[in-house]
């Protein structure tokens, strides 16, 4: 960890606000996400699970930084690249694996799979297979919060590509005009599948679009959990105060391909390596140790415990119950007679 010496002694607010225990828990979540996705990838390669999946490896800083300050009663809407958001909001990786394996024990009883995994009990209103699909839904959840006079927020994750959908513009406008408690979190990983943002947007930043809707647009370093959390914290506070929505753009990068079928033809190896060197996990570890908030031994123990939990989760999922094909139409309606 040669970065250790570079950390300034006067710690930024993020390191003062949270206890060492909370910060280490955040690191553990980042590891859980990383190992969850690596485990899922491996299970896929070994033919244990099918379909496709979108890995967020490299984006854990924004997933955990954004969800850290949320309460259980706050909502999130997520995306096709949503494993990190789901774990960040409090889901149990073993039940996510069970979903991946298509088992009854899974969060969606095997009906949803990777693209729809959500632990509703922790306020996750769903990952989404439709680019931009979650944006208006988050606005609706925030409208309900306002009507019910709660001080919760709805956090809406989406990608840079999604900001080119009409749904994005309609959702931001409505949230702003009704001053709803939404925190829009754009994870700008530079590409919508293969198309770079420079070729899909005429503005430099997604955050620049916020001004068209009369809301603050803030840019954070998505690979720094501290930078993300501080930007989000302000947005959450603003939303809870009743001052309306904020758009936070987290500049980040996915080091894996878009999905299982990606051959990485649209970017260079150098670019990938450059971003791998900015991996949010070692970056956070280095800062924790530089501030004396964690020792190397503790960091190793966190990593090991996350690994053990993931391995146990995969075992749990493998032994799960397969759904009964006769129940294919179950849960289409609330009242099964319909």
């Amino acid at each position: 960890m040669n970065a250790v010496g570079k950390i300034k002694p006067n710690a930024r607010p993020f390191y003062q606000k949270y206890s060492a225990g909370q910060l280490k828990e955040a690191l553990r979540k980042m590891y859980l996400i990383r190992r969850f996705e690596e485990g899922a990838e491996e299970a896929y390669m070994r033919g244990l699970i099918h379909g496709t999946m979108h890995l967020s490896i490299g984006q854990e800083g924004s997933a955990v930084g954004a969800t850290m300050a949320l309460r259980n009663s706050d909502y999130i809407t997520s995306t096709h690249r949503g494993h990190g958001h789901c774990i960040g909001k409090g889901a149990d990786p073993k039940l996510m694996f069970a979903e991946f394996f298509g088992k009854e024990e899974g969060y969606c009883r095997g009906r949803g799979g990777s693209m729809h995994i959500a632990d509703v009990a922790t306020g996750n209103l769903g990952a989404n297979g439709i680019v931009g699909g979650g944006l208006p839904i988050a606005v609706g959840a925030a409208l309900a919060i306002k009507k019910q006079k709660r001080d919760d927020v709805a956090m809406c994750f989406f990608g840079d590509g999604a900001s080119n959908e009409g749904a994005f513009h309609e959702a931001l406008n409505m949230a702003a005009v009704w001053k709803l408690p939404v925190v829009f979190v754009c994870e700008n990983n530079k590409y919508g599948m293969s198309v770079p943002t420079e070729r899909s947007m005429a503005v430099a930043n997604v955050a620049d679009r916020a001004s068209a809707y009369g809301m603050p647009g803030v840019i954070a370093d998505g690979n720094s959990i501290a930078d993300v959390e501080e930007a989000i914290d302000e947005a959450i506070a603003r939303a809870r105060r009743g001052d309306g929505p904020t758009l936070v753009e987290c500049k980040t990068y996915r080091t894996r391909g878009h999905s299982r079928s990606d051959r990485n033809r649209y970017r260079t190896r150098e670019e990938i390596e450059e971003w791998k060197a900015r991996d949010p996990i070692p970056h956070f570890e280095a800062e924790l140790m530089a501030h004396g908030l964690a020792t190397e031994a503790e960091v190793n123990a966190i990593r090991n415990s996350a690994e053990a939990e993931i391995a146990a989760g995969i075992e749990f999922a493998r032994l799960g119950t397969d759904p009964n094909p006769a129940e294919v139409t179950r849960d289409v309606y609330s009242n099964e007679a319909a």
Partner: protein
Amino acid sequence: MRELTYAQAIQEALAQAMDADPAVFLMGEDIGVYGGAFQVTGDLVHRYGEERVMDAPISELGQAGVAVGAALAGCKPVLEFQFSDFATLAMEQIVNQAAKLRYMLGGKVNVPLVMRFPAGSGTGAAAQHSQSLDAWLAHVPGLKVVQPSTPADVKGMLLAAIDDPDPVMVFEHKLLYKMKGEVPEEPYRIPIGKAHVARKGRDVTVVATSIMVHKSLEAAETLAAEGIDVEVIDLRTLRPIDTATIIGSVKKTSRMACVYEGVKTLGIGAEISARIAESEAFDYLDAPILRLGGAESPIPYNPELEKAAVPQAPGIVEGLRNLVRGRL
């Protein structure tokens, strides 16, 4: 009993639903002080305030998604589309989200929303403001689709729709808004998924939807004078379809016609015909099934063309006469 128009019956249902449950709210374009494009919400904004009768930006996709999110989070939104044609802008949220969220999340959520769609031709509004897209939405598992044809039915079915834990799409024919009929004052529910025998008859079963129920009843009166006794079934719900009532009727009459305004091909008539062909009623048929549906064209502007594009009573009379007289 006191009479209300179809539009007034809807408004009364909306008011009674809001009185009964603070979670119910209305959203749509110009439904506030303007009163709605067809004056359905009328002065509700003055009685319930802008928070419960919400004018939304002209963002159909966004509004549909807001309704989904609010429903997930404990509200009961009733969304008015200004014209049913604009459902095409909101298909993403209706078809991919509202209809599927419960299923995709393993039954852990429900989406109790209602969308109201002023539909149909006859107003000279031409191709983009006159469609009947009910069968589109009825194709989607997870949605319920109703098409009430009378003031009494629309009140009862709308209240049932608002009670329902799942998304219900309500298609309201624009020409019915001014139709008057007896409507009980107290709140009541008419179950979703139950057809109604609007006229009993022996010789032929007509399965009709929405305004075509009235045109079919008109045709039935004409034919009664010729000694042809027509049974008219008002389907009322497109999903789930009340197959049992139709089968029972066809076994009695041995002839069936389907009359609907949506485009004939791949419309509701195809589904009903197939259900009869698949059922024990098939053996009872004495004649081929007749489908009278909308023309294979957009709805035209010219009034005569517009009438020609959807079934009218004289055409229904002729079709049924030929069917019963064995001239098909």
